[in-house]
């Protein structure tokens, strides 16, 4: 708009200047005549005659001056648009084909960008690193360790302080922990995720508030004040309508009153993509916020995530080396005090502090980003192949149209159009189509973004994670569209011009009736077949891997089993009240009609995370520690409810845990680690640092928490109703064979005891197991969609090429029929061409797939990417597609009427 306005002004100025020049010219001439003694009026008349008419001269000058660049551009664009409108079938086909592929690219890129590529909205995200360090041993009996799915190990507060105070390779280092809490702010209470962090959190990240203030250095130690909280921009908008008077108001988190001091900038939701944080408060408030048997600064509470900002000029490796040195010193000091076995010394000797990049959405803390990084990258690669196949189709359409327009092009050359003009015009048309397709694709991606959670198989995506394209995805998509447009143009137009400019009009018109460029079109289609084969094989191997995963036995029957969670602590219950509450829930649950049994646990099976610790046995030689990945508290009848077999001994009864005798159950893996093959029943185990004081009363069968993962060594203790772990509990309910359990039934039961306690995570165990495979299901289903799309595009390409070939060989075919060729032999004539194409494409595609399929290895289960069955399936599907696409033109060719065809000649 602005450009065209400027262009218009330029034109006006040039016109005015010309006007003025001619006027001064007339004046000069008039003066000249008057000096010779002619009267003024006559002199002026003669001057005008000599000039030859002002308007005529102007017209001549205008013709010479040429159009300004932009004006020429606008004229070409108009001409191009007219051309496209004149061929609506072509235009729609191109925009649909390319638009579909670009839309898929936009959606996958938007997800990949939000979960993996995008830097966090903080100051200089590239300088942020995540610090991970195994716990430093203490003499206490129970330690808590938090390990994210990305492998980042939680750090205790004392270790954090020690590292922070000793290291100068970092500009700042913060400790944080993600929590969820019930927020009460006037209206209905709701659950929100948040962060408890050290007071330098915002300073280290370089995040400034949009309203109020954030907490600053020293604030964590300022006791006696009411705790302060900073809320996210999203929460401020959603819950408080962006009301600025929110400052200094009090909201309640888990019943704890907190003063709102500020609002974070929009887009900032903490350091972890996928774990949306809506409130930010200080570490010292944690103990009041969440009841726990550990103080926040306990050395056994290894749960904090450490994020540090590298000092200017310090490389990550260098910082890691220095920080690891300090950590090893701290570790050596701690290991030194206390009798340790050789084995445990060796284990500590292998412990290291590590750093990993923290400034990007896919940092090692983000479970979702971590889980989906490889799958999304794979999908991005696949969807770009789909785009190439689509571009191949469009290129073919352009070539076919070039043939059809050969006459027009020839006439344009004959009329004196330059090669550059013709090329420019076709480039403009290609780019206009590509941009149109890009915009259409973005619209498609926008409309279908609500489908993303279905494809990803998560109920709701975290805030800010969607496949709807934003400005970044939009720019990338339009960029891709332009590149596609350029490539298509280069492949089709150059060919047309090379031919066009070297021939006379007569030759040109003749050639238009033959089939030049046909070879080039065949190469395009063969390439499409090859790429489609790659996609088909990839999706076949991913699907087979998924089928294998779904067949894995979890170790207990998941049918007719339900689970849900309660958190009485968040409704204000103290430990002892909680226990009574949970007991009465259990009691009423088992009285729901159809319920066979119900029990309670601190950790559900098949969950990814979990807390563990080190376990020792009463072995006669020096006790050695064994890492138990899971240490859970479970109620009476827990294993019976799950259907998890107790292979030796017994499971807990309601009497266990109440008397003075401490008891424990081990799973087979842990029992083997602690006691080798000797009978563990009756032996004693304990936690590291304490005496082995728990008697092993039973052994349960190994189960897999995740079909892909190894069995995790587990220790079970009786559920402690006097002091429920973390003041929360999960329930397992088994119903009779034919029955089912509704969430309403459970909610009614819980509401009957206390309506303030919310039932969360109600789900059937079948759903839980299948949800664990969401990543594999997404990969298989989305790649299948892409492969199908590519195969369809490829089929269209083959169909178009074969139809074209039949149309141009119609005279030859007619002659053959007239000379007695059978229909079968004519069909074979056409199909032979298709078969060659398919065979060449298949061979190329299979070679390409076998060369590059290593990238799939990491996501496959019990399958190599060379899986022969998948290769065969891929080749067969494409062979079938090629056959189907070639059959119709072949059938038509065989039914040509020779008399009609030959008469046309």
């Amino acid at each position: 708009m602005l450009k065209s306005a400027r262009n218009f002004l330029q034109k006006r100025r040039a016109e005015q200047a010309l006007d003025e020049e001619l006027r001064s010219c007339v004046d000069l001439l008039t003066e000249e005549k008057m000096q010779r003694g002619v009267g003024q009026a006559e002199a002026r008349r003669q001057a005008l005659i000599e000039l030859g008419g002002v308007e005529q001269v102007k017209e001549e000058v205008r013709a010479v001056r040429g159009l300004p660049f932009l004006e020429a551009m606008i004229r070409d664009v108009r001409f191009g648009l007219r051309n496209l409108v004149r061929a609506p079938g072509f235009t729609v086909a191109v925009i649909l084909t390319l638009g579909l592929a670009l839309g898929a690219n936009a959606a996958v890129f938007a997800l990949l960008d939000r979960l993996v590529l995008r830097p966090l909205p903080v100051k200089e995200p590239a300088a942020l690193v995540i610090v991970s360090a195994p716990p430093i041993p203490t003499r206490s009996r129970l330690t808590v360790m938090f390990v994210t799915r990305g492998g980042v190990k939680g750090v205790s507060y004392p270790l954090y302080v020690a590292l922070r105070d000793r290291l100068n390779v970092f500009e700042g280092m913060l400790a944080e922990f993600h929590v969820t809490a019930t927020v009460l702010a006037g209206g209905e209470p709701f659950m929100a995720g948040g962060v408890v962090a050290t007071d330098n959190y915002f300073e280290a990240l370089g995040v400034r508030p949009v309203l109020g203030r954030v907490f600053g250095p020293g604030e964590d130690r300022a006791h006696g004040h009411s705790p302060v909280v900073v809320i996210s921009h999203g929460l401020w908008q959603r819950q408080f309508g962006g009301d600025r008077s929110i400052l200094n108001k009090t909201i309640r988190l888990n019943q704890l009153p907190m003063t709102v001091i500020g609002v974070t900038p929009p887009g900032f939701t903490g350091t972890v993509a996928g774990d949306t944080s809506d409130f930010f408060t200080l570490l010292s408030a944690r103990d009041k916020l969440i009841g726990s048997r550990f103080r926040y600064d306990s050395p056994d509470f290894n749960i904090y995530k450490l994020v540090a900002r590298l000092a200017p000029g310090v490389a990550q490796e260098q910082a890691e080396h220095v920080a690891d040195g300090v950590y090893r010193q701290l570790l050596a000091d701690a290991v030194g005090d206390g009798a340790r076995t050789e084995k445990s010394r060796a284990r500590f000797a292998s412990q290291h502090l590590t750093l990993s990049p923290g400034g990007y959405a896919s940092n090692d803390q983000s479970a979702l980003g971590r889980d989906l990084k490889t799958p999304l990258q794979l999908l991005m690669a696949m969807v770009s192949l789909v785009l190439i196949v689509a571009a191949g189709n469009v290129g073919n359409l352009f070539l076919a149209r070039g043939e059809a327009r050969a006459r027009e092009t020839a006439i344009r050359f004959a009329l004196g159009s330059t090669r550059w003009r013709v090329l420019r015009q076709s480039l403009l048309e290609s780019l206009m189509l590509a941009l149109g397709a890009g915009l259409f694709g973005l619209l498609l991606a926008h409309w279908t973004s609500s489908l993303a959670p279905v494809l990803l198989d998560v109920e709701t995506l975290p805030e800010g994670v969607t496949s709807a394209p934003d400005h970044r995805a939009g720019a990338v998509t339009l960029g891709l569209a332009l590149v596609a447009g350029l490539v298509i143009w280069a492949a089709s137009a150059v060919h047309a011009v090379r031919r066009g400019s070297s021939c006379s009009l007569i030759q040109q018109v003749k050639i238009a009736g033959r089939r030049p460029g046909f070879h080039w079109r065949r190469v395009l289609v063969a390439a499409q077949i090859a790429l489609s084969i790659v996609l088909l094989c990839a999706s076949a191997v991913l699907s087979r891997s998924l089928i294998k995963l779904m067949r894995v036995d979890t170790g207990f029957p998941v049918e007719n089993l339900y689970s849900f969670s309660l958190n009485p602590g968040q409704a204000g219950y103290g430990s002892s009240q909680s226990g009574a509450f949970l007991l009465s829930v259990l009691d009423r649950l088992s009285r729901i009609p159809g319920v066979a049994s119900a029990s309670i646990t601190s950790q559900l099976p098949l969950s990814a995370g979990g807390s563990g610790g080190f376990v020792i046995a009463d072995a006669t030689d020096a006790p050695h520690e064994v890492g138990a990945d899971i240490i859970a508290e479970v109620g009476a009848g827990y294993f019976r409810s799950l259907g998890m077999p107790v292979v030796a001994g017994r499971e807990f009864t309601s009497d266990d845990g109440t008397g003075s005798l401490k008891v424990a159950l081990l799973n087979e893996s842990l029992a083997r680690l602690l006691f080798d093959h000797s009978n563990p029943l009756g032996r004693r185990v304990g936690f590291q640092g304490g005496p082995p004081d728990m008697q092993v009363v039973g052994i349960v069968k190994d189960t897999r928490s995740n079909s892909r993962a190894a069995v995790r060594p587990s220790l079970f203790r009786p559920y402690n109703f006097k002091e429920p772990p973390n003041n929360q509990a999960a329930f397992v309910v088994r119903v009779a064979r034919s029955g089912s359990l509704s969430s309403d039934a459970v909610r009614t039961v819980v509401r009957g005891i206390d309506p303030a306690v919310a039932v969360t995570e109600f789900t059937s165990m079948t759903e839980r197991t299948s949800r664990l495979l969401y990543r594999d299901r997404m990969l298989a289903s989305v790649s299948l969609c892409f492969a199908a799309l590519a195969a369809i595009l490829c089929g269209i390409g083959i169909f178009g090429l074969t139809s074209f070939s039949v149309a141009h060989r119609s005279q030859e075919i007619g002659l053959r029929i007239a000379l007695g060729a059978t229909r079968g032999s004519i069909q074979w004539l056409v199909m032979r061409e298709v078969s060659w194409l398919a065979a060449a494409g298949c061979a190329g595609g299979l070679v390409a797939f076998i060369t590059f399929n290593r990238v799939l290895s990491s996501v496959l289960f019990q399958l190599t990417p060379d899986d022969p069955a998948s290769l065969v399936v891929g080749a067969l599907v494409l062979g079938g597609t090629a056959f189907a696409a070639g059959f119709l033109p072949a059938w038509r060719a065989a039914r040509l009427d020779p008399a009609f065809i030959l008469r046309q000649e």
Partner: protein
Amino acid sequence: MPESKTDLLRGTLDLLILKALSLEPLHGVGIARRISQMTGGAFRVSFGSLFPALHRMEERGWVSADWRSSENNRRAKYYRLTALGQKRAEAEERDWNRLVQLMTAAMRYADPETEEG
């Protein structure tokens, strides 16, 4: 006014304009007068070809123009030769001289033949 209306060869006009401007900047009328003066009144340039030629040369950067007062205190658009135009003038002149030489030689060669025949 007895004026011969020699039809200017294409390209000749450009050379004449460049030559006319090689001495001093001139306005449109000045250029027309200078050309007829240079050719002893043989060529009379029409403004219908002069102005288009000037604008084309301006677009190509051979001449540049600015407004100043004429000798009679009238404002007029004066054209001057640019460095590029200077080079162009030299090249065109060389070409022209070569053409004239070749043509002259050709005429001389052809003359005896016609006489003999």
